[in-house]
C-alpha cells in the first residue's frame, strides 16, 4: 500500500517539489546578499555608534520578495489542502475507483491509514520546508524588526505552518469524503481553512497564556496623549491608538497610555490607570488639567502644554503594559502547531468513521 500510495501521489508531489525548488533557488540567490548587507551595516553602525537611530538598509532590499514571502508561507498550507487533501479520497469516490481499491487484498482501514499518513506527512513537510526557508531568508529582517511574535508575523514563522498544513490536508480529505466531489471539497477546504486560521488567531491564540502585566511610568515609551471626542468623531493629540483604547463621547476626553516596544514580544495593550486600576474620566481630567478644555477650540493647546499636563497626571496615573514576552514565542508556536495537528487527527478519525458508516 505504501508503494502504491507513492505511485498514485507522484505527480502532485513532483509539482510541489518543483514549486519548492523555485522558491528555494530564488531565496538561495538573494538570501546571502541580504545577510551580507545586514552584517556590513551592523559592523559600520557599531563603529559609528549610531545603530539605534540609523535604519538598517536591509529593509529596503528585495521589497517585492519581502512582501511576497509571508503570502507564500500563508498560501502553501492552503494549496496543500486543496490539491493534496481534497482530491485524495473524493476522486476515488467520484470516479468509482474506490471499488477497485477496496477489493484488492488490503483492508479499507489500512488503505486509508497509509494514504492519510504518507500524504499527510508530505503535506507537513512542504509546509515546514517553505517556512524554514522563509525564516532563514528573512532572519536579518527579523533581527531589525524584532516583531516575529507580532499579530501579523507569528503565523509565518517557526513550526505553526506545519500544523496549518496538516490541518488543511486533513480538512481536504474529510471534505472530500463528506461531499464526494473534488471541486466542492476544494471550495469547502479553502473556506474552512481560512475560517479556522482566523478563529485561532483572534479567539484562541491570545488566550493561550495570560499576558505579563507590567507597570511603567506614564512618560515611558513614546509618551502619553489624549483622545478628544467631537461631533465629527475623535481627534488625537499624540495618542497611541489601538483596539484597547476606549472611544470618547462627544465633548469627552480620554488619557491614552504611551506605545511601548517589547523586542520580539507581543503587546496586547497599554492602559493609563490609577493605583486602584481605574482610568481617569473626563470629570476628573478637565479640572485636573484645565488646558484640556481648549481641545474643542480651533486653536488647540500646544504640545508643550499637553506634555506639562501629562507630567502632572503621571503622579497619579501610570501605564499598565500587558504583553507576551519574546521568550514565549516557541511555546506559542508549539501550542499553535499542536492545536492544528490535534484538529487534523480528529478530522482523520471523522473521515474513517464516515467512510465505514456511509460506504458499507
Amino acid at each position, binding site marked *: *500500500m505504501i*508503494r*502504491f500510495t507513492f*505511485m*498514485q501521489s507522484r*505527480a502532485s508531489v513532483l509539482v510541489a517539489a518543483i514549486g519548492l525548488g523555485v522558491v528555494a533557488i530564488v531565496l538561495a540567490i538573494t538570501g546571502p546578499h541580504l545577510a551580507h548587507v545586514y552584517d556590513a551595516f551592523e559592523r559600520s553602525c557599531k563603529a559609528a555608534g549610531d545603530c539605534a537611530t540609523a535604519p538598517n538598509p536591509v529593509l529596503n532590499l528585495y521589497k517585492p520578495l519581502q512582501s511576497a514571502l509571508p503570502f507564500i508561507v500563508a498560501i502553501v498550507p492552503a494549496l496543500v489542502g486543496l490539491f493534496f487533501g481534497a482530491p485524495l479520497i473524493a476522486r476515488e469516490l467520484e*470516479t*468509482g*475507483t474506490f*471499488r*477497485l481499491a*477496496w*477489493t*484488492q*487484498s*488490503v*483492508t*479499507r482501514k*489500512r488503505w486509508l491509514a497509509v494514504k492519510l499518513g504518507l500524504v499527510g506527512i508530505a503535506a507537513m513537510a512542504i509546509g515546514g520546508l517553505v517556512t524554514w526557508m522563509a525564516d532563514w531568508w528573512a532572519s536579518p529582517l527579523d533581527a531589525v524588526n524584532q516583531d516575529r511574535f507580532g499579530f501579523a508575523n507569528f503565523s509565518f514563522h517557526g513550526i505553526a505552518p506545519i500544523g496549518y498544513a496538516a490541518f488543511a490536508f486533513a480538512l481536504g480529505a474529510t471534505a472530500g469524503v463528506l461531499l464526494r466531489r473534488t471541486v466542492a471539497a476544494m471550495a469547502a477546504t479553502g473556506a474552512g481553512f481560512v475560517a479556522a486560521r482566523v478563529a485561532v488567531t483572534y479567539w484562541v491564540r491570545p488566550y493561550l497564556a495570560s499576558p505579563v502585566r507590567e507597570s511603567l511610568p506614564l512618560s515611558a515609551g513614546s509618551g502619553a496623549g489624549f483622545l478628544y471626542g467631537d461631533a465629527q468623531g475623535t481627534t488625537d493629540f499624540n495618542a497611541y491608538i489601538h483596539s484597547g483604547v476606549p472611544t470618547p463621547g462627544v465633548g469627552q476626553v480620554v488619557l491614552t497610555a504611551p506605545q511601548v516596544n517589547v523586542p520580539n514580544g507581543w503587546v496586547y495593550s497599554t492602559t493609563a490607570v490609577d493605583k486602584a486600576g481605574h482610568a481617569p474620566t473626563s470629570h476628573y481630567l478637565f479640572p485636573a488639567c484645565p488646558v484640556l478644555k481648549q481641545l474643542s477650540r480651533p486653536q488647540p493647546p500646544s504640545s508643550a502644554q499637553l506634555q506639562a499636563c501629562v507630567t502632572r497626571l503621571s503622579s497619579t496615573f501610570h501605564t499598565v503594559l500587558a504583553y507576551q514576552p519574546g521568550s514565549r514565542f516557541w511555546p506559542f508556536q508549539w501550542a499553535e502547531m499542536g492545536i492544528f495537528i490535534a484538529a487534523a487527527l480528529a478530522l482523520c478519525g471523522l473521515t474513517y468513521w464516515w467512510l465505514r458508516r456511509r*460506504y*458499507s
Partner: protein
Amino acid sequence: MSGVIEASGLGKQYGRKWALRGCTLSIPAGRVVGLVGPNGAGKTTLLHLAVGLLAPSAGSISVLDGKPGDGPDQLAKTGFVAQDTPTYVGLSIKKHLRMGAYLNPNWDGDLAKRRIDSLGLDPRQKAGSLSGGQRAQLALTLAIAKRPELLVLDEPLASLDPLARREFLQDLMTIVAEHGVSVVLSSHLTADLERVCDYVVVLFSSQVQLSGDVNDLLGSHLRLSGVRRDPGSLPADWVVVEETHTDKQSTLLVYTDGAILDPSWSVKPVTLDDLILAYMSQGRSLRPNQGRELGVLR
C-alpha cells in the same frame, strides 16, 4: 465444504429502503453462475455484499467460508470487477499491474503481462484513453491475476459492443478452464449468459426466484400448448410457472420431473431466456415447500 456463497436472510437497508431483503441462497463451487434480474432487483447490492464492499444490515453471508471483506486474506480470495469497470484514468496499464503486484500477495505478474500482450494493448497507455472493452479487459486482468478462488463480475458486459462482449466472454471461459476459478456474473442480458453460464440465479425484487443448474432447469421445464382447459384440472405434480389462455387454447410453462402422458398437449423445450423471463415476469418462485428445490436436483 459449503458453497462459494452462502446467504441466509441477507438484507441491506439504506435509510428506510431495502436494497436487498430476505435473500437466501447457496451457490456451489466450480460453477459459472449467472445472476439475473431486472434493474433494481438487488444484484449489485448482493455482489457488493459478497466482496465486502458492503456490510449486511440483516441476515448473514459467507463467501468461501469467510466473512466478506474481513481482513486481507479474505479479500485475496475474491476478485471483483465492478460495474462500469473503474480504473485510474491517470495511470498507465503498466502501473495498474504494478498496483496489483503491490496490493495482492498472490499476484501472478506473468499471467497479467501475458494477458495484456495477447490483448494487443500497449502497457504504457493510460487507462483513461482505453475503450470501454479494453478497460473491461484491464479490469478483468487485474481481478484474475490476483489469483482468486472466486471471481465476481458486476455487469461487465453492459458497456461493451456485441463484438467486445463476445471476446470478453471467450476470455472469461478460457480463464475458468485454465484456473478452475468459480465465477459469479451479473447481467440483464440473458442471451450472453446462456453462452457461458452453467448455473443461474434469478433475483426479482430482492428475492431469489430461481436458482439451479442450467441443464437441470432446461430439462425439467416444458412449454405446453393445447386445447383450452381449466387450470384446476392439471396434474397435481405440475408446477405452472406461466400460463396464458385464449378462448380456444392454453399455453403453459410447467415444471415437472415426470413425462407428459396426455397426447393432446404439444410439447416444446424451453430456452434459458424463456425460463428467466417467465420467472421474472410472473414474480413467482419455485419454493422448497413444493418438494422440489431445484438447487439439489442435479
